[in-house]
């Protein structure tokens, strides 16, 4: 059954195609075969057996990627039994990989994907100094394995007013503790045998967490640091330089103040555009942040961090444009840029032959509030535009409802 469906060829014809990897193509065809994009272009021959989707007058883009969610890890905010995004009682939970906490049956998944977000980062939450490992998932599939894109994206740490408790209440303490854990992980990596024989002094974290940090400390996987105050961002940059880490900055509210420095360091950032409420953790937060970082040459991915409303990622992007990003930059920042930052750009983020067929057909400009989603394809399969919310809507469309 699945094999039959995967073998299906789909041709999305006549739309204005935004491949992201290149300029837009008018009146173009996107050909999907075996879950992959087979071809994209203006003068493609459509195979006779292909299912045709007429997209004339429509816009066709890659599926959007939200790198700021806890998708699958939360159902109801205030119902603890439905929340699996945080590991309590461990301030340096580097080995906490969220994957097995993901609920593929979460109602949020359909609610999100039918509005054009096809891929999300399922990230560990809370305010620990080291929160754990996020995974990237496609928003379709009956099992965690079916949804996963890779086993781990890296390790998330936080340098902020909330996480400094892990350092005894001071930011300096938090930074020092992070270095202690890193040093011990390196030491552990060098002296595993002695560790096993208990011939080492006690280390700053359990072996599993130190082990989990080794790929990060070897530069094989990124360290994602949530930091908003300029000085916290600078601490993250300093530590990354000391340990030669592959750093990703997240939050980065005051990043605009040192955009050039972040650009020079070659560090990409994950930013939610619609943040401008000052707190002592980021008095300089402003709507122009994303645009200023992008203008300085920083690789920017845009976020919607409200997991329930991850579908508003496109509204975030539209507002980023409103506050100075170019439209093309913004589209890249919700497709190819996050794919690249999370290390999956060979397979995701653009409409190019060979890539995973996550494709969205929109009635118009995806960032515009008037625009609706017409078709969604995830891994080459068309997704019915239904969710628990559309069912509620239909049930109560005329009153009294039929139960």
């Amino acid at each position, binding site marked *: 059954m699945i094999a039959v469906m995967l073998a299906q060829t789909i041709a999305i014809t006549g739309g204005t195609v935004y491949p992201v990897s290149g300029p837009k193509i008018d009146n173009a065809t996107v050909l999907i075969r075996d879950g992959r994009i087979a071809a994209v272009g203006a003068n493609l021959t459509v195979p006779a057996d292909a299912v045709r989707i007429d997209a004339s007058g429509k816009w066709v883009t890659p599926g959007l990627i939200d790198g700021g969610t806890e998708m699958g890890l939360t159902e*109801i905010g205030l119902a603890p039994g439905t929340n699996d995004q945080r590991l309590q009682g461990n301030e340096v939970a580097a080995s906490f990989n969220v994957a097995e906490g993901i609920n593929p049956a979460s109602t949020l998944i359909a609610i999100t994907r039918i509005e054009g977000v096809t891929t999300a980062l399922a990230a560990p939450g809370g305010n620990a100094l080291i929160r754990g490992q996020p995974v990237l998932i496609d928003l379709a599939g009956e099992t965690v394995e079916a949804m996963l894109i890779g086993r781990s994206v890296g390790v998330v740490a936080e340098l902020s007013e909330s996480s400094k408790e892990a350092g005894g209440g001071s930011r300096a303490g938090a930074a020092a503790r992070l270095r202690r854990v890193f040093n011990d992980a390196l030491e552990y990596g060098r002296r595993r045998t002695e560790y096993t024989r208990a011939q080492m002094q006690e280390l700053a974290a359990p072996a599993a967490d130190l082990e989990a940090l080794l790929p990060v400390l070897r530069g094989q996987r990124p360290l994602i640091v949530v930091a908003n105050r300029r000085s916290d961002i600078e601490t993250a940059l300093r530590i990354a330089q000391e340990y030669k880490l592959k750093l990703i900055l997240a939050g980065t509210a005051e990043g605009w103040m040192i955009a050039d420095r972040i650009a020079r360091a070659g560090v990409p950032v994950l930013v939610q555009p619609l943040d401008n*409420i000052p707190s002592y953790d980021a008095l300089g937060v402003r709507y122009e942040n994303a645009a200023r970082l992008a203008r300085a040459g920083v690789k920017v991915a845009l976020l919607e961090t409200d997991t*329930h409303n991850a579908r508003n990622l496109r509204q975030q992007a539209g507002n980023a444009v409103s506050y100075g990003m170019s439209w093309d930059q913004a589209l890249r920042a919700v497709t190819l840029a996050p794919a690249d930052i999370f290390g999956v750009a060979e397979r995701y983020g653009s409409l190019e032959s060979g890539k995973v067929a996550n494709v969205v057909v929109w009635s118009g400009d995806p960032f515009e509030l008037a625009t609706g989603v017409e078709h969604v394809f995830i891994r080459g399969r068309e997704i019915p535009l239904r969710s628990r919310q559309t069912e509620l809507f239909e049930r109560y469309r005329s009153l009294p409802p039929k139960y």
Partner: protein
Amino acid sequence: MKRILSIALTATACASAGAGPSQAPGTAPTAAETTSVSRAQYASTYQRKTNPPVVIRNATIMTAAGQEIANGSIVLRDGRIVAVGPTVDAPADAVVVDGTGKYVTPGLIDTHSHLGVYAAPGTQAESDGNEATNPVTAEVWAEHSFWPQDPQIPLAIAGGITTIQALPGSANLIGGRSAVLKLIPARTVQEMKFPGARYGLKMACGENPKRVYRQRGPSTRMGNMAGYRAAFIEAERYRRKWDAWNKDHKGDAPDRNLRNETLAEVLRGNIYVQNHCYRADEMALMLDLAREFGFRIRSFHHAVEAYKIADLLARDSVAVSIWADWYGFKEEAMDGIQGNAALVQQAGARPVIHSDSPSGIQRLNQEAAKAMHYGQRAGIEITRDQALRWITLNPAWVLGLDSLVGSLEAGKMADVVMWSGDPFSVYSKAVQVYNDGWLVYDRNDPAHQPRTDFELWQVLAPGSDR
């Protein structure tokens, strides 16, 4: 114009439970005059700021009164809208604003804000919204918590907001009085109090009160209902005592009790009930509670399940102040849907898009647009004028101010926003905001970008692009 002003003054008298001192000089004070209840209670000191007359020409004027006028003009003078239409006569001394490509709407009104009571930067020291010490605190007034230097205020102004209802939080069954405020920079809350506006009474259903008071009660929804009923039964007794004494002022005045004083004003119909309530079944119970005690609920707030009982809401003329798409942050919010506003509108009830958020308040226009487009795409006929009313005239009605603000009509207060483009587009921003005729915000002129004391020195970004 005179008629409108007199309505405003009457409303003031009603809302403040006693019209203030009227003692003639040289006479001995009566018992009534020595009782604090008859004196002004934190009266509004709002004063319109002078502004030269303004005419905005060649703009698309969205009136929220049934019309969208292409290439229209609007004239503001002395705090009033004096003309709106395809052609207008402008005073010779009017500042002429070129509205080519621009859109003009009424000032936006948010029925559900915690600005000033949950001020930024959001530390415990500024957490003044929930008097969570008793499930019934009808005696507290939001204006006594409100901090006019909240740095969130200029952000909301830049989003085109001209009036807010600042509410106590929802920890309590009865949380206290709301403050209806002109959103302008000011030193004191009294300077912001909308002249003549009634108070609202914040009430809350469901999860919040029973979670907060789990130990002492109420700990169940039935406990919540018993709590409201006990409070209003007491208020009925209080009202009878005062009504009797007010007839002849004989003997000592009854003791003042702030809690019952507020609830008695609800029973008299002078204070509007603003009821945080998510679930359809609970809203239906609250409608019956209101019937039991003879008051009206003016608006349910949050009401994520309003669409399930839209017919009941239309029958009882109760508005709903709702989000475009929030859901799922707690169990009673699980059934929130994007079609809520459209289905409520379809049933002939009165939807309002509210924010309950210092972030959301900055783009109520976008939130209304999302709700409108969702309905339209689903085949429900929603006009642009109706959707604009969700954030202008309908919230004005919820606050009892629809004869004064909420639409662009001659004679109304000049609360007006000029947008860079269609306000229902994600790319449009407020360029100019007039509050009572005063240019309070201009995106292109730093001289009209108010900043709070809090922002000085420490918040570096200027107002134009924050």
